């Protein structure tokens, strides 16, 4: 300190009295600011206050440990980081909740542990975690951004004396970007504080070339990191005789059970679980009995009260539960197999329908005595679904899955099962009906009756109520009507706009059929000729042999 003031006097207030040699050397270099060194917190804080009071704003203090009150002494405003963290945290909560609500309740509704699709308590842990995660990211990256990080080098490091900042020295720095920065003035101001070292911070003149080994290492790492990708790519396009490599074995071969498999978990040995007695599967709650039976229940209750009551009872889960428990207590000692049979009976739709089936099984015997129940039942005459393209597409899909194997894709009654049965001359086979008979048209065979037949079966055909959902069965009814229409449709029923395309398609198909027929005929002719020729040749050969 003493030395400095003496020098100051001798140089008569010259502004470049420190490190004159260095200064002259550095004159051409860019000046970043001025730094001063202090030996204690108190001198540093005093200097900070002076600098703050002189109006400098772009300043910084460097200390080996946190110093209380230094932000105040330097006039640093409180950081906005907490607000960033709060914003990030709230974003995290919102993200988690929106994500889970959307995924689980709307995009892919999936029953988990029997909870509602939108169950807030289950979403809380994820919301909590994402809040913490986002807030931490906000704090970490917010701090980086506010501090201008990452920064690989700082001009203050050029001075070797600055190294002691991590040990026992304190530094105060004024940046040249400060509005009122003036090198001489700053140096004088700092010189007046209790320091014995003031230095101008200039550009680092050490080489900014990255050492060669770095490039080599980077290159090597980059090259190595491509290898897994290359392996994957090669495997995508090549074939191998080796079995597939399973990275996640249990994901490729899930231990979950498939339909109809056996499980030791349950007493009845079934992996597929029937509905719990007295419950209704989600989305299957139908209060509308007309919809579920295909019968106009109001009309039925007038005609045949007991049957209507029976139907009401059979479709009410509460009555079913009663029936099941009664059954269970009754058949405690019945063997497992019998029990399973009973179970499937009571699961499969639904006792009232059994009566219908029974009646329809023996139509001829009693037909003379009194009209069949099938004829007296007040069936619904129209499909209760709102028919649109989607419903018909659904009907077509389900018809393809369940009906077409017997009835054929076009409903003509010649599905694959029938083809096979005819081929092996199966004894007990009753050929499935063609759906294109007049007796099955809507005026003779109402929609409700068709629905009931699909649900409960007829003759050899089993009921499908256990396999096809109510709504899908009605969709099949609609599709069958469409199929029937398709066989007898006239071109007048098509709208003007589509008529032309249909006609052109029709002519194309006819053309193609004709070509095919011609080609077949030609091929047959050629074959005949060839055979003739061969025969002839054979004859000639024989003759030649004979003559020889």
């Amino acid at each position, binding site marked *: 300190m003493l030395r400095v003031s003496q020098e100051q006097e001798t140089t008569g207030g010259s502004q470049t009295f420190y490190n004159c040699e260095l200064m002259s050397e550095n004159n051409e270099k860019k000046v970043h600011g001025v730094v001063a060194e202090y030996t204690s*917190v*108190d001198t540093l804080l005093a200097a900070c206050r002076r600098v703050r009071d002189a109006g400098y704003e772009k300043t910084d203090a460097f200390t080996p440990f946190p110093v*209380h009150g230094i932000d105040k002494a330097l006039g640093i405003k409180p950081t906005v980081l907490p607000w960033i963290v709060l914003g990030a945290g709230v974003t995290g909560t919102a993200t988690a909740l929106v994500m889970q609500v959307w995924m689980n309740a709307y995009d892919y509704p999936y029953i988990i542990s029997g*909870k509602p699709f939108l169950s807030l*308590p289950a979403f809380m842990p994820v919301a909590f975690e994402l809040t913490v995660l986002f807030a931490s990211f906000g704090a970490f990256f917010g701090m980086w951004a506010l501090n201008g990080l990452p920064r690989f080098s700082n001009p203050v490091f050029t001075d070797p004396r600055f190294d002691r900042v991590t040990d026992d020295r304190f530094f105060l720095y004024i940046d040249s970007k400060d509005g009122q920065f003036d090198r001489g003035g700053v140096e004088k101001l700092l010189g007046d504080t209790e320091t014995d070292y003031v230095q101008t911070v200039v550009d680092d003149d050490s080489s900014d070339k990255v050492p060669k080994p770095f490039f080599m290492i980077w290159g090597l790492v980059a090259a190595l990191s491509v290898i897994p990708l290359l392996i994957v790519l090669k495997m995508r396009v090549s074939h191998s005789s080796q079995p597939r490599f399973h990275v996640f074995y249990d994901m490729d071969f899930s231990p979950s059970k498939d339909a109809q498999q056996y499980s030791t978990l349950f007493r009845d040995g079934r992996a597929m679980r029937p509905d719990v007695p007295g419950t209704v599967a989600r989305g299957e709650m139908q209060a509308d009995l007309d919809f579920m039976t295909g019968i106009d229940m109001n009309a039925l209750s007038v005609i045949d009260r007991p049957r209507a009551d029976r139907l009401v009872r059979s479709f009410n889960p509460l009555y079913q539960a009663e029936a099941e428990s009664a059954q269970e207590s009754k058949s405690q000692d019945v063997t497992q197999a019998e029990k399973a049979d009973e179970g499937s009976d009571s699961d499969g739709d639904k006792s009232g329908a059994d009566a219908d089936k029974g009646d329809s099984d023996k139509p001829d015997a009693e037909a003379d005595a009194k009209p069949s129940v099938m004829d007296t039942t007040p069936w619904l005459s129209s499909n209760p679904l709102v028919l649109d393209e989607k419903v018909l597409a659904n009907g077509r899909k389900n018809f393809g899955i369940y009906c077409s194997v017997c009835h054929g894709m076009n409903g003509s009654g010649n599905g694959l099962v029938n083809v096979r049965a005819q081929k092996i001359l199966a004894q007990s086979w009753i050929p499935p009906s063609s759906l294109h008979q007049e007796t099955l048209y809507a005026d003779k065979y109402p929609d409700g009756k068709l629905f009931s037949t699909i649900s409960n079966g007829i003759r050899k055909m089993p009921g499908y109520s256990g396999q096809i959902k109510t709504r899908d069965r009605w969709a099949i009814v609609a599709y069958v009507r469409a199929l029937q229409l398709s066989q007898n449709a006239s071109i007048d029923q098509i709208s003007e706009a589509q008529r032309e395309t249909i006609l052109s398609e029709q002519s194309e198909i006819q053309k193609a059929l004709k070509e095919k027929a011609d080609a077949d005929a030609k091929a047959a002719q050629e074959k005949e000729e060839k055979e003739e020729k061969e025969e002839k040749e054979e004859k000639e050969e024989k003759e030649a042999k004979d003559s020889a």
Partner: protein
Amino acid sequence: MSEHSAPAPKSADDPAFMLPASLAALRIPLCVGGLIVMLLGWYLANDIGSDGGNFGMSVYLTAAVYCMTIVLGCLFFVLIQHLVRAGWSIVVRRIAELVMVMVIPMGILFIPIIASLWSGDGILYRWDDAGYAAEHGLPQAVWAEKLRWLNQEWFTVRTIGYFAVWTMLALFFFKNSVRQDQTGEKAITDKMQYWSGPAVMLFSATTTFAAFDWVMSLAPMWFSTMFGVYLFAGSILGAHCLLAVASYVLQKKGAMRDEVTVEHYHDLGKLIFGFVFFWTYISFSQYLLIWYGNIPEETEWFYVRQLGTWGGVALVLIFFHWMLPFAGTMSRHVRRKPGLVCAWGAYLLVMHYLDVYFMIMPSAERGNAGGPMGVIASVLCVVGMVSLLTGLCLGLAQQNKVVAVRDPRLGESIAFENI
């Protein structure tokens, strides 16, 4: 911190360390008035139930458990400060020490609860009713196992045991701290820090089982292993709130004005903020597991608390025991204003009572919510009991100092600064 030479604390006889006279004058009125109000509330509550005093005893138990949790929270505060050798908290530690000694009057206040076990069948705890199992169709074998733990004799022995342990801990730490007021020995601090480890273990074992016995066994077939932590979470939150409120009141009345600074309020505020969330975390975790498992024997407790009026109380707890104070104490600008920290502390002490009420009353009422009169009786009872204990505590404070005046690190605590 090292750069700040700690200012020398005032001399031990300074009036700043004495209980202000205006507060000391309140101690007799508080004791007498509190006792009367408490008995009045209890009497009114007894009048409500038509079930042999069950409602009255439940109201009394609610008040007792509320006071107990705060007393135990203060005991835990002292133990944990010693355990981690905390320096900042020394200026407020004596307040916690004074409160934790109230475990002795609490022991006396618990006599009616034990007496209810011996004087009749199932007055308060339903497992005490010989007909309970048959009435609820419980399997005999299971019930017999339960009764091996839940019976009058063993329950009484345990309760006495809990109070014995807590009294021992409270007196050990209080007496040593007070002795240091005279001698200023550093060895005393060392001794207290040495024993704080075993003390914390004893404390956690006893409080967990006390929570099981006193509160959880109100629904005898219900169990939750984290119930002890749940009660403790509210307890430690209440203790920090009480410290903030007590410091603020004492400073307003003229004591320790230079000792407790904004920095200490800031720290108490941080702890309040943290424990508000800890309480939420614990109570929600308990709920989530039970809700998710959805097993009848576990959901019983929440079933009654999620329906009807109690469902409303549960929502009030979510919004006003968690969300509001969570948002309110989040900012450091709030935590650095002593008045606001004190206000939030007082607010949360009320919320903590609602939490305890929510734990006890639905189990105990037997379908009788008590109506407005029941709520008034409950409030009278708890206000009376708190006043009585405050009066006793002021009496104790008057005979001693309100700050640990010769703690070797008092200066460090006074100079404490948050970074």
